[in-house]
């Protein structure tokens, strides 16, 4: 037992869970009652929205100062968020739910879609993440986009994104969530396709947009169904009324919300857009496709916990999707050679962990959000570091053409390494707490999911080591004319600040500001007891991480990495390189049938009836008539179609009478 005792003494063992079952927040207080800065919470999203508007409207005249304004406004939101956070912490626990009604968007009689904001521990956590990481990425972009002629436009879109994302998490009802949801989708579309002169970027933007729309339909249907069932779409009213609805209704609402979440968060089966979205500028990948927007799905599920708690089917599907995507993402990340695509696979996988956490119900919600916050920091750090690497290497993305960059890019390597520590599950860094929290909880609720999560943790350590080794270690493999150089401080300083978060975020949220107790009043919490006792579990998880790192190091740091991807690889690697055939799947299942249907309809609409008329004429053999029909055509074929329609209606009505 001495190992265990030693482990207990050395390893941090807490995982940030709330100490005891916490009472949910019941009282809602208005911003006016709460006083202080609360009535100003609308400024959180209004500031960046103003930035976007100014930059877009003033146009080229703001080229010289626009980007500075665009950086200053999210920082302003961040400062306001800090004040609000401090104020909220001063409130009694049961009162930490402050609403602010900006204007009442009521219509259709009883419909109460007030334009109302809601600040509670869950939303303020997101606000901190979005404004904090968002501000850093704005600053980083000053350097990253310095040479781009459209830099002002880039900052305008970035501000637009921040505003929409803040609206999404601050909304007090599902309809307003939907507004933010569409807003971030639009901003994502604009930013992924920002370098639209590249065909790949334009195509990727379109693809991301289309797949997101599939999810959006789910959200709009869910809202509609909520309105029909509960007569309201305000969070507190829906959650209060939820227990009275039938389980079938709740399951359908839950699955529709999940469809929306899956689309936005690039989860199976709507995952294929995320890797392509890496065509966007790297700050975009860091902010939108790693730290914030793609986690909106997790937010939606956790926010709707009152619905998911009441439907075992819906929540089981959340769990299953989490497990599948977690594995798929890690698998893809292990096989991709482009640094950003590998990171994107990792993002899918980590969000899969969050879905798994959320799919555990009350036992996992807090860990899902905890991991989400941690992920926001370390993954933003990793992406910005990757962006810095690309910036210093003529936008080379292929890791096979890096190698040995540790000499030329020391600061970047340090930042990347901190991110590596944050994600790979080593104590006492971020994932050691947050990811293991999910694994612990999973082992108590669903052993299979827990074991898979444990295994994927090893894959995580492996692919991160692979990235680290291929980029910074080994022998240089760059082209002759490539001169790797370090990025300017305007880029490296934000990276280093995020590195601090990647290293110490976990410790902070466990020991200084326990995240579990902070969130539990919103999400609820139930203790779950893992099937494996705590200390052996922690040791196993540590061992798995170390094995992953060792395998990765042996394969990619100690051996030469070929400059061209070898082709004699296992079927597993081939599949991973092809993103597990997600594109082929989508194309054959959705895109091609859709295209064919449209083409067929157009064809039918234009020609077929005409052809029918011609065919009849030919059949009769009346040459003159045939020629005449060839010449006149349309009006009469339209009339024929009307006649056909009339017959069709007659048949339908007559048939319906028989039943």
């Amino acid at each position, binding site marked *: 037992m001495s190992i265990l005792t030693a482990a207990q003494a050395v390893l941090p063992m807490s995982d940030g869970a709330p100490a005891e079952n916490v009472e949910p927040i019941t009282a809602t207080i208005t911003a006016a009652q709460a006083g202080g800065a609360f009535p100003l919470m609308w400024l959180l999203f209004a500031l960046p929205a103003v930035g976007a508007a100014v930059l*877009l*409207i003033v*146009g080229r005249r703001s080229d010289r100062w626009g980007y500075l304004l665009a950086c200053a406004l999210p920082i302003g939101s961040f400062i306001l968020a800090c004040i609000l956070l401090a104020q909220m912490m001063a409130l009694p626990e049961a009162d930490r739910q402050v609403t602010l009604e900006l*204007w009442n*968007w*009521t*219509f*259709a*009689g009883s*419909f109460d879609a007030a334009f109302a904001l809601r600040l509670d521990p869950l939303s303020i956590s997101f606000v901190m993440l979005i404004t904090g990481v968002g501000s850093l990425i704005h600053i980083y972009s000053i350097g990253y986009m310095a040479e781009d002629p459209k830099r002002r436009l880039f900052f305008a879109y970035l501000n637009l994104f921040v505003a929409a994302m803040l609206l999404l998490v601050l909304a007090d009802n599902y*309809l307003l969530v*939907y*507004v933010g949801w*569409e807003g971030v989708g639009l901003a994502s579309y*604009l930013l992924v*396709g920002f370098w*639209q002169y590249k065909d790949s970027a334009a195509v990727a933007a379109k693809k991301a*947009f*289309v797949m997101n*729309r*599939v999810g*959006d*339909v789910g959200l*709009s*249907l869910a809202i*509609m169904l909520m*309105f*029909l069932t509960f007569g309201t779409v305000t969070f507190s009213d829906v959650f209060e009324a939820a227990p009275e609805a039938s389980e079938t209704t709740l399951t359908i609402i839950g699955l529709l919300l999940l469809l929306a979440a899956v689309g936005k968060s690039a989860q199976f089966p709507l995952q294929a857009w995320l890797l392509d979205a890496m065509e966007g500028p790297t700050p975009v990948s860091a902010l939108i496709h790693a730290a914030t927007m793609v986690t909106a799905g997790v937010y939606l599920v956790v926010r709707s916990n009152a619905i998911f708690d009441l439907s075992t089917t819906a929540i089981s599907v959340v769990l299953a999707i989490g497990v599948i995507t977690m594995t798929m993402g890690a698998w893809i990340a292990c096989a991709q050679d482009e640094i950003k695509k590998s990171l994107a696979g990792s993002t899918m996988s980590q969000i899969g962990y969050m879905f798994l956490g959320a799919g555990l119900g009350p036992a996992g919600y807090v860990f899902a959000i905890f991991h989400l916050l941690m992920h926001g920091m370390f993954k933003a750090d990793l992406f910005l570091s990757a962006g810095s690497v690309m910036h210093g290497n003529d936008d080379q993305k292929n890791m096979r053409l890096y190698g040995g960059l540790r000499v030329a890019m020391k600061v970047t390597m340090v930042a990347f390494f901190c991110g590596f520590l944050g994600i790979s599950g080593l104590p006492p860094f971020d994932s050691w707490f947050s990811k293991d929290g999910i694994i612990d909880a999973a082992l108590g609720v669903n052993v299979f999911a827990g074991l898979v999560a444990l295994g994927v943790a090893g894959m995580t350590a492996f692919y991160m080591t692979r990235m680290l080794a291929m980029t910074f270690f080994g022998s240089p493999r760059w082209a002759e004319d490539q001169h790797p150089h370090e990025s300017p401080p305007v880029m490296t300083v934000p990276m280093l600040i995020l590195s601090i978060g990647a290293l110490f975020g976990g410790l902070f949220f466990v020991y200084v500001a326990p995240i579990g107790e902070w969130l539990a009043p919103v999400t609820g919490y139930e203790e779950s007891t893992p099937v494996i006792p705590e200390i052996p579990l922690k040791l196993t998880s540590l061992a798995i991480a170390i094995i992953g790192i060792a395998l990765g190091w042996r394969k990619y740091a100690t051996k030469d990495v070929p400059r061209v991807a070898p082709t004699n690889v296992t079927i597993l690697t081939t599949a991973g390189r092809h993103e597990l055939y997600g594109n082929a799947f989508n194309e054959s299942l959705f895109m091609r049938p859709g295209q064919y*249907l*449209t*083409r067929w*309809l*157009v064809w039918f*609409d234009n020609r077929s009836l005409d052809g029918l008329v011609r065919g009849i004429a030919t059949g009769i053999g009346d040459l003159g008539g045939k020629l005449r029909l060839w010449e006149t055509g*349309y*009006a009469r074929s*339209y*009339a024929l*179609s*009307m006649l*056909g*329609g*009339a017959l*069709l*209606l*007659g048949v*339908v*009505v*007559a*048939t*319906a*009478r028989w039943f």
Partner: protein
Amino acid sequence: MTPSAPVAFPDIQWLQLAPIIVVLGAAAIEVLVEAFAPRTSRRSIQIGLTFAALIVAFAIIVINAGTFQLVVAGSAAVDGPALFLQGAVVLTALLVALLMMERKVDPSGDAFAARASAMPGSEDERQFTARGYLQTEIWPLFLFCTGGMMLFLSANDLLLMFIGLEIMSLPLYLLAGMARRRRLLSQEAAMKYFLLGAFSSAFFLYGAALIYGFAGTVSFGGIADAVVGQSQMSGLLLGGIVLLCVGMFFKVAAVPFHEWAPDVYQGSPTPVTAYMAAGVKVAAFGAFLRLMYVAFGGEAWEWRPAFWVVAILTFFVGAMIGLAQSDIKRMLAYSSIAHAGFLLLGVMAVTPDSLSASMFYLLTYAIATVGAFGIVMLIRDDSGETTSLDAWRGLGRTHPLLATAFTIFLLSFAGIPLTAGFIGKFTLFASSAAAGEGWLVLLAVIASAIAAFFYLRVVVIMFFSDPVGSGPSVATPSWATQTTIVVALIVTVVLGLFPQAVLNIADHADVFVR
């Protein structure tokens, strides 16, 4: 009735009928103006009369608010829906009239041919154009059409409804053929519209005859009594309903009775296209709602399956074929087809809520449509309007305000929140689902998600495509077109943000008088 019995003249409720009388009366006066006023002053007189008539008519509609009665021996109704939709028609007409008087965007005159009788491409035509002739007969035609619409949607028996239908349609057939540019295309459009319109009228009439055979009356109230009294639905009744519906489906451009719409929209002068897409849709749906709610509402389950088929076909075909269009007017035609599909949900639900939701939807759709076509008029090249989508590339860079305005109209068509179109779609879909058509709403939501693509495609083309050549050439319009666009924009945004006042009006107008 014996031959000697005195003919009973019905009471005429002058005040209640005044809006229609004013509009049709002004139209008749305008015909006289054509005959007697000198050429130089005709245009200003006609425009003055048209606006005066429309404004007076609107004022009387407002004064009549709250009226709930049958007039002229029960053959017409003045009730909430009639007044609301007449108001919508008159507002639409005002905006369209502003587009019709626009003379600045085309160097040679307004959107209409200098002399409709001149052969396209002939020396005569060239001469007339060079002398700056204007075809001022468009104004009486336009007012007759407007009066027809108002009559059509308040008619309470089949005969008056048919008369309204024809008064509305005949001037439109003429107006469709009077485009100044691309006259052959315009005349072809007019011809098609006329032929197919006549064909559909025949269906309507035949249906009316069958219904008369079944019920022994043409009044909606009488038909409703006869329908409810039936234990076994008669073939006459069902056949009549189907045939009447074919006539109405044609007017609202529902699939498979829609094929005229893209051709006719494309060929007609753009202000007339705007009126077809907006005004006709309001009037025809107003009449359709009244017909199905009042006369046949008692047996909705009998005819609803036919509506399912048509509605599903309509919104899917509209949305999917719209995706493949490369001409803005054809694209807007398919958009109007898709909207007709959504509105059919309101017709088949037969509940007060869906009635008010449909009316709100019609209003928002009509106003945004006129605004959108107002912008279509401005994108031109040497040969007149260029409706090819390629001409819109880069509009967002060269003319950001115009492109933003068009974007807002498109977002409203797509039903994106914070626009009037969203409120319209939401209330309509919610009321339809509440009426038990949940699965149909599901399909409609999917179709509107598909339709959103083609709207957003235009947004993308405007803002994110590089301009072709020197960029789109945009004519600077006079105050008239500017007013139309700005008013339509304000209505679209304000009804998106603060819809309650107008929704309340619609809610208070949600019952048909019988």
